[in-house]
């Protein structure tokens, strides 16, 4: 397995991922900016510290699996997969363009993508099926899926949640990118689904709520199943638009595309943070 980067290394990667997410969304003139920025740190920890997935082992039946149920945050996934070596990031020049396989939601035509998603409420069932196959075969792999908090209004998630506990899928981890915003407004105002901890626990899951931008906390929650015999639910508290002051926790950036001025301001913020990071004395 690749060298495991330290928190500072991850911090730098997240800044570069955010820069790329904005670049490609700006370039394509379309994308789900807010949600991609809220889940970048989660994907960073998954692909750089947790998942046993690489371009070399992607055909291996024993690889770990990641299914992005909140498929609209695809720009974050595409950027992280490029960094993981699945394709040159420059291929994202075609994002959302005529005849590109970089569609606005994940598809298996893109190397590294496990499952076509985009309609909400599908990923957890598919991930449960992958995890169940692992149990039937006594295979050691783990399966992760990323859900949005707004997405949890889809009833199919709770069908899948039941089956995850029923089949004791402790090789399955559902991560909720809980940025508390959806397209209409606050999730609690649109259709309240809190307390999510108690809901998942009542369905028979082991649950942990963590800061979804804290690399150490995410790593600790994700690197092992939370409890033997139960699927894991990691409720990652995040902020939509994370990392860009004027986008953070602002609903309109759900699928807002920055204009030239906004883009320049956002990149300047990221570059300032990268410069500050470079000046820090290495630990």
């Amino acid at each position, binding site marked *: 397995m690749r060298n495991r980067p330290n928190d500072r290394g991850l911090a730098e990667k997240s800044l570069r991922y955010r820069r790329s997410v904005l670049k490609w969304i700006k370039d394509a003139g379309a994308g789900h900016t807010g949600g991609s920025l809220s889940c970048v740190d989660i994907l960073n920890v998954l692909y750089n510290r947790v998942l046993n997935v690489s371009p070399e082992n992607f055909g291996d*039946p024993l690889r770990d699996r990641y299914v992005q149920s909140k498929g609209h945050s695809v720009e974050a996934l595409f950027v992280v997969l490029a960094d993981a070596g699945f394709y040159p990031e420059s291929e994202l020049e075609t994002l959302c363009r005529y005849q590109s396989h970089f569609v606005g939601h994940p598809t*298996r035509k893109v190397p590294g993508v496990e*499952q076509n998603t985009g309609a909400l409420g*599908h990923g957890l*069932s598919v991930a449960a099926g992958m995890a169940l196959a692992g149990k*039937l075969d006594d295979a050691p792999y783990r399966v992760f899926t990323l859900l949005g908090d707004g997405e949890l209004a889809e009833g*199919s998630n709770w*069908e899948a949640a039941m089956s995850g506990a029923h089949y004791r899928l402790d090789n399955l981890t559902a991560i909720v990118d809980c940025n508390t915003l959806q397209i209409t407004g606050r999730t609690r105002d649109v259709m309240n689904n809190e307390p999510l901890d108690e809901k998942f626990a009542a369905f028979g899951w082991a649950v942990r709520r963590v800061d979804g931008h804290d690399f150490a906390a995410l790593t600790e929650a994700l690197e092992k199943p939370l409890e033997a015999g139960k699927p894991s639910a990691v409720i990652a508290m995040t902020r939509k638009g994370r990392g860009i002051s004027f986008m953070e926790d602002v609903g309109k950036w759900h699928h807002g595309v920055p204009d030239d001025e906004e883009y320049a301001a956002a990149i300047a913020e990221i570059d300032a943070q990268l410069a500050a990071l470079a000046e820090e004395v290495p630990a």
Partner: protein
Amino acid sequence: MHSAAARETAAALGLELGRANLEIFAETLLELARADGNLLAVTSDSRGSGKLGPFGKALPRQIVEVGIAEQNLVGIAAGLASAGKNVFAVSPACFLTARSFEQVKNDIAYSDRPVCLVGISAGVSYGALGSTHHSIHDFAALRALNNLDIAAPADNREAAEAVRFAARSQTPLYLRFGKAALFSLPCPEQPFARGKARLLRDGGDLAFIATGETVIHAVLAAEHLARTEGLQCRVLSVPFIKPLDEDAVLAAARECRAVVTAEEHMVHGGLGEACAALILAAGMPCRFRAAAIPDEYTVTGSQADIFRHYGLTMEGLAQTALTLAQSSAAQTA
């Protein structure tokens, strides 16, 4: 199911009454699963309806129960298939193709997972239970999805061959099975192959193009018309609604004076419309009727009652064909 006259016609043709396709499906699947530990049946509280009780007892590790949750049924099936399992997802056709339509569209067809979706008690098999339990929309709905084969076996032999085909297929597939005991069709030596129709009887006066449990009625109607009217009717069994055997359909339109399609489905979007569109696009002049269930509040009754009511029996199909042939003759004269 059949009238006394139809049973007599079947006897005259030497056709034997077999069993329900659903039973053949379950037996064949068990046989295949015994030889392939990777084969799984996934059920939504439907092992009884799917005749999979013996399967569950014999191979408990090869049956996955998801409870009454058809969306999850299809999603889990996709996940299992992605990990290399040979998956048959079994649920009443009415729920499988409506409640979980989006899972079929995205998780199976679009994601290219070679799952066999098995719609049990399909069409109006659950006749008297009402429209909630009918699946007369399934061909139409599923035909509109890319990357999904659709097949409806017409007798026990086609059913067994369809299950064996499904176990080998690497393309997502929907199979539809009914509950009624079916007569065996003539011409059993013709192979069952993807996208191929089976010619059960040849003739040039008229062609019946039928699928699933209506095929036997077309066979009987052809015999009835031969005896009473001296008409020579071709009968095609079309197990595959998709991919459709375009050559066989166009040959029937070209070589016969009229075409009647028959299906246990609403008139919209099924075999009839598929054939009509094909024939029209080929520029062939063709007298044509689609025998199907009309766009109305479906009448209450058993499958046999509903077939009779909407003209899907030997008598009904023969009458439709005769009227069409006569109008065809009048126009020619």
